């Protein structure tokens, strides 16, 4: 009974840790005391995302009738709260006429995907695998 409760508490903590890491890149590492790694993720990933926005990349909508657009939206969402903040501030409209449009999309999508890798890493650290 006690072991089960401890296991549930541990699972709950893991979910919170992963959610925090998704919402704010590097937050999970900071939570676990890996300060230098956390600070690097906290600086690099939002900066990469911001670069994508600055060069007129597009935050793709969740259009499931277009599978590639839907997948790009899921990748964009990987960056966490920054995605919603950018959308709320009117960024990420994208301008296909600009030469750097595709570069911007690559920055936005890859920043989101890298944050998903960071979440997997923080999960591994929390499980004691690293």
């Amino acid at each position, binding site marked *: 009974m006690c072991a089960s409760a401890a296991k549930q508490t541990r699972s709950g903590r893991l979910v919170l840790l992963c959610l925090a890491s998704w919402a704010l890149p590097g937050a999970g590492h900071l939570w676990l005391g890996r300060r230098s*790694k956390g600070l*690097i*993720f906290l600086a*690099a*990933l939002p*900066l*990469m995302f911001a*670069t994508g926005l*600055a*060069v007129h990349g597009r935050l793709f909508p969740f259009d499931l009738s277009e599978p590639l657009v839907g997948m790009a939206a899921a990748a964009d969402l990987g960056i966490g709260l920054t995605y919603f903040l950018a959308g709320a501030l009117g960024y990420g409209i994208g301008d296909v006429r600009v*030469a*750097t449009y595709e*570069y911007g999309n*690559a*920055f936005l999508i*890859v*920043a989101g995907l*890298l944050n998903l*890798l*960071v979440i997997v*890493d923080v999960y591994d650290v929390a499980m004691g695998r*690293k």
Partner: protein
Amino acid sequence: MPSHLLLLVLFAFFVSLVFAVIAKDDGWEQFRFGGMMFGGFLASAVAIGWLMYPFPL
């Protein structure tokens, strides 16, 4: 920011940095791994660019 080369370098830098920090724990190992990855990105981009040079659009 119209420079394609600058964007390529920035992209390679960010990806190499994050991969190096995820993959390695020791500072020197991170620097070495990230540097090799960054160099690999740039070298392959220049090599592929030149290989595509003869092909018309």
